[in-house]
């Protein structure tokens, strides 16, 4: 059955290998150039005191291609789900070839082997892609210092996305029994699941850290931030002297922006209080008032040290859901398609 699976998957495997080879060549050609650029400019920029210029030059250099790669890594799992997963059973049902296959080999064995082998192939393809892209992007990643923005294009989570997308596609095909609806369902559910996990689950997978700092965001627009610039700030709340939350990311009140006005009563920060002795709106003056009112920022964030723990946990979630879907698939094929 494994041999049959591989034989029937030969064309798709060739396309995937071809695609990976093309990407590998493109990365191999441009990658060393980027590394060279990093070594000659950014690596010793501190000595020349022009780091911002050097990093900007490097980012511009790698930008276009890095966007392509970013999209590629995000999209390939969905493509695997749609074009490998969804047809696996749906096409057998539509072309009635299941009557050939399932009278040669018990259908439960058929679906188990197909799921197992092809899930691993999907994971391997996306894993290889992720490794290549991670290698290529490493100079850019080093200067961007924002690993959490490319969290879902690096590391091990992408392998989890691939497994999930493939088995999701198979399940959609089994349940809808038609190829096109199965493809549509696969895309919809995959995107929804990815967004839901990224926005609502990922921030809380590991208990985030909390930090209270002097508020600088109202006056200067930028926060003192967390100890490491690579940390992922989930929320930045303004709290007043009594510890009550009065705003988010420097804006106070329902209007979404902080109203700072100067009047007869001095500087008024709407919603937070007023400083009668301050009569200027300069950022220095506003900062004085903020300090007088004892406004602080409550930062809730995932420190960079949680990065890999979050990666493994999110991958585990996707693999867990994958396992559940695979079980559903086998059950459905055995009991509902007879």
């Amino acid at each position, binding site marked *: *059955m494994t*041999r*049959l699976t591989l*034989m*029937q998957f030969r*064309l798709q495997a060739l396309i995937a290998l071809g695609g990976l080879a093309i990407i590998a060549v493109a990365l191999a050609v441009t990658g060393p150039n980027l590394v060279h650029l990093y070594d000659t400019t950014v690596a010793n920029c501190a000595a020349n005191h022009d780091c911002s210029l050097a990093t900007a030059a490097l980012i511009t250099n790698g930008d276009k291609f890095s966007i392509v790669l970013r999209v590629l890594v995000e999209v390939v799992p969905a493509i695997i789900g749609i074009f490998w997963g969804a047809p696996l059973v749906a096409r057998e049902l539509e*072309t*009635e*070839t*299941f*009557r*050939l296959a*399932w*009278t*040669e*080999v*018990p*259908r439960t*064995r058929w679906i188990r082997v197909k799921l197992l082998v092809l899930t691993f192939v999907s994971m391997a393809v996306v894993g290889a892609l992720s490794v290549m892209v991670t290698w290529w992007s490493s100079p850019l990643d080093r200067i961007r210092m924002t690993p959490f923005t490319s969290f879902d294009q690096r590391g091990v989570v992408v392998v989890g996305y691939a497994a999930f997308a493939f088995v999701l596609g198979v399940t959609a095909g089994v349940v809808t029994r038609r190829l096109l609806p199965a493809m549509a369902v696969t895309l919809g559910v995959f995107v929804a699941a990815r967004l839901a996990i990224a926005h609502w689950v990922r921030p809380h997978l590991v208990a985030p850290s909390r930090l209270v700092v002097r508020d600088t965001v109202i006056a200067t627009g930028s926060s003192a931030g967390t100890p490491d610039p690579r940390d992922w700030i989930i929320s930045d709340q303004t709290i007043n002297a009594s510890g009550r939350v009065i705003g988010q990311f420097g804006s106070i009140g329902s209007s979404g922006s902080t109203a700072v006005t100067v009047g007869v009563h001095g500087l008024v920060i709407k919603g937070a209080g007023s400083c009668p002795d301050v009569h200027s709106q300069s950022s220095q003056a506003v900062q004085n008032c903020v300090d007088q009112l004892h406004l602080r920022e409550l930062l809730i964030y995932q420190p960079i040290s949680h990065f890999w723990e979050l990666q493994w946990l999110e991958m585990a979630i996707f693999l867990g859901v994958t396992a559940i879907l695979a079980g559903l698939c086998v059950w459905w094929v055995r*009991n509902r398609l*007879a």
Partner: protein
Amino acid sequence: MTVAIETTALSKRYGRKLALQDCTLDIPDGRVVGLVGPNGAGKSTLLHLAVGLLAPSSGAISVLGGRPGDADLLERVGFVAQDAPVYRGMTVSQHLRMGSFLSKRWDDSLAESRLDDLDLDLRQKAGSLSGGQKAQLALTMAIAKRPELLLLDEPVASLDPLARREFLQGLMEIVADNGTSVVLSSHQIGDVERVCDYLVILVASRVCLSGDVTDLLGSHHRLSGPRRDAASLPSDQVVIEESHTDKQSTFLVRTSKPIHDPAWTVKPVALEDLVLAYLAAPRPPKRAHAAGLRVVQ
């Protein structure tokens, strides 16, 4: 007599629709069995139940003494589905490899020599084969497993007359060579007559007659004579079909006893007429078992 397919009160329903109803059958081993009936009578359903593609809604079915769909039974049963589905993108030789991967009893030389005889190009994609070639490929895959039982669902329905004859000839050779039991469904009574020695008639999701073809022909007679009422016939004669003119009556009857009434002109019945009479009967005639054949309600 060993049994190829044995069913007890077997029923299959799709939602509210009954595809097969209360079917009790013993299909003996070592025969070429024709499963006849109009479209939608439940022929495919019965075969799909026998090969495990469908699960019974109620009742029981056993094939070669085993449970349909079990791995070891699938090895012993060859099946060709209606319209002989094949993988369009796979070549003929890849289909043979598929068979060799999946079946422990696979006979590669048998498959290749058969396709060679049929002039099928091994490198051709199955999607570009004609209907007849597809059917031959599917049959080859089924018999290269060296099955004890071959189940064929409307194997010749989509074939032209020449391809049909070739297919049936090939089938008869297989039976002669290997003694394989065959159950084939068809609504072409002529084909069934040519190859089958056992008949099962399905009408409106019920089995209404099954038996050895010779026994069936021996126990059905066409009687013609002066007009009389069906009710006046002896109780051992079951009327399948009757027609009357002003002076004359014609009956198709089933009986295990010889007909002695000198008023009748007794003629044998052709198989096709016999089948058509059963298909046309408004309701399967209810009577006890006749000798050598089985009437199932």
